[in-house]
């Protein structure tokens, strides 16, 4: 009876004494926090892969995206020579999806970037100045708010005429008001905080205050908000193409492809769903990425 119960206690390896991490710059600490967030890293990698795919499309795509064949229309996924099937004009879907990433990503990202620049500037100016400047800028912005964004984008592109440039222009106009609004409200909040007054009290001029304290605290939330708009913008751009207001056939663009394949939805539903799947994938990744960036930028956590 000497079955001595050996009490094996897993000696938890003592955590290294909590060290006061020598703090790096703000952006570097945000970056290191981002790297620790697996979901965000995966999303970022997916987006990076899509961007690379778009850039190197001519080398990656197995076929010419515009070359059709009347004989080989609407082949199912996995058929010979057409790994992802073919569309209603017998063009290779894989190649068209790869080339489509170019236009789709440009139409998703460029308008948001332009709107971030213009809207951010307007919002920060309005928020920092307050008073009449604020009223003038924000009431003008409110006019655009009166219309639903889809309707506004459709109306502007309709008025300017179909085309990629016009679609980008109209989407930019659509996204300026919400970004300006967010920038304005965050700036107004930050401007009233003690540390801005403290900066002024220690001799900082308007320019320094805007550059250091306002931008430092406002760009974070505004940038994150803009990231979340990327997916909306992609979908709106796809919608414009779907309505025939964005890109024109036969150019490959996911929204447009979704539109033309619509007629084939009963013959070959899986092929018809592919462009939609790509749009979903990109917007999904952008959304998760913006969530990750948002929590990484919160230094106080």
């Amino acid at each position, binding site marked *: 009876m000497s079955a001595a119960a050996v009490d094996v206690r897993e000696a938890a390896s003592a955590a290294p004494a909590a060290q*006061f991490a*020598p*703090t790096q710059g*703000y952006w570097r600490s945000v970056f290191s926090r981002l790297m620790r967030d697996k979901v965000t890293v995966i999303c970022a990698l997916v987006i990076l892969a899509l961007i690379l795919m778009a850039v190197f499309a001519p080398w990656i795509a197995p076929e010419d995206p515009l070359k059709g064949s009347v004989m080989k229309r609407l082949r199912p996924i996995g058929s010979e020579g057409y790994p992802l099937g073919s569309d209603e004009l017998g063009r290779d879907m894989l190649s068209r999806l790869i080339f489509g990433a170019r236009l789709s990503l440009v139409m998703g990202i460029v308008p948001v970037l332009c709107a971030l620049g213009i809207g951010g500037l307007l919002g920060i100016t309005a928020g920092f100045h*307050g*008073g009449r400047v604020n009223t003038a800028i924000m009431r003008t912005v409110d006019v655009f708010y009166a219309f639903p964004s889809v309707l506004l984008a459709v109306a502007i592109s309709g008025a300017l005429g179909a085309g990629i440039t016009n679609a980008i222009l109209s989407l930019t106009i659509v996204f300026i008001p919400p970004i300006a609004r967010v920038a304005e409200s965050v700036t107004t909040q930050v401007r009233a*905080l*003690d*540390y801005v*007054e*403290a*900066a*002024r*009290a*220690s*001799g*900082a*001029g308007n320019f*320094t205050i805007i550059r*250091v*304290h306002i931008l*430092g*605290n406002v760009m*974070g939330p505004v940038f994150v908000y803009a990231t979340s708009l990327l997916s909306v913008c992609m979908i709106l751009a796809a919608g414009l193409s779907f309505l025939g207001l964005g890109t024109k056939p036969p150019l490959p663009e996911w929204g447009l492809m979704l539109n033309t394949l619509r007629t084939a939805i009963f013959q070959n539903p899986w092929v018809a769903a592919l462009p939609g799947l790509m749009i979903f994938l990109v917007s999904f990744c952008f959304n998760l990425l913006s969530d990750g960036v948002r929590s990484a930028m919160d*230094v*106080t956590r």
Partner: protein
Amino acid sequence: MEPRAPDEPLVSVSDLTVRFSRTGQTIQAVNGVSFDLAPGEVLGVLGESGSGKSVTLRAMLRILPAHRSSVTGTIRVAGRDVLALSGAELEDYRGGTVSMIFQEPMLSFDPVFTIGQQIAESVRRHMKVDQQAARARALEMLDRVQIPSAKRRLDAYPHEMSGGMRQRAMIALALACKPKLLLADEPTTALDATVQIQILLLLRELQREFGMSVIFVTHDVGVAIEVADRIAVMYAGRIVETGSVREVIRTPRHPYTQGLLSSTVRGELRGQRIEAIPGSPPDLAAMPPGCAFAPRCKHARDECLRAVPGAVDVGGGHEARCVLLKLAA
């Protein structure tokens, strides 16, 4: 800087008036405040919320919102006319000649920069030195305000420090450029009692060492007694009584000061009622023509309501604005 006579006060404020205009009404926040401050002197400004103490400080630093407030009167600090400053001169003045510490240490640092970066930013601005020297100065200042392991704290974000520590860092920031005058806006109000006394002692020590003048705004009589050489009691935007700490506390001459002192909790017996001042301060948008304290004053008489009583000197620089003193004289 203009040369100034050795006996000229460092700060000379006369007839300072601050009005805020809101939709349709004018708030008379400060109504003709005048005082002088000698180099190395500490003035405690005592008063309740809304008496214009903080507004006076902000007016002296010109950090009131320009389009909603009007400041009149004269403010001279170190021989310069503060209200006439503009542009780079004003920025040199703020933080260089005069600096300020705020009530809420939590909010007076920018959350996205480290303490060291923020102190160094101000040092570079005013002392015109490079990054390296500015950082060294920041470290030296953190040491001076007795922040333990200052070297590591230099790279800490504001949220990584406690309230008392942040207020010390704020003091380091304010004093880094060797100002001649420090404006302290209730710097100990947001801190707990044990930290409060440490900060007061530190401020007093640094003030002696740097030989600077301090205007210390507080609503706490005990704090004012602790730090100040001279006390100014404010009520409804006016200084109603001023004098040395000893004079004002021992023999308060204005009924408001008397009420303020007797309503302060000292070692009273349990169950004994503390004498409070009845009523509440006047609406600053509709100031009475006479003494603003008259409606709450138990000695009030007819002439109190007619005009604002002038300051009466009761000896030794001790002044009070009350008609009773004029009658007694």
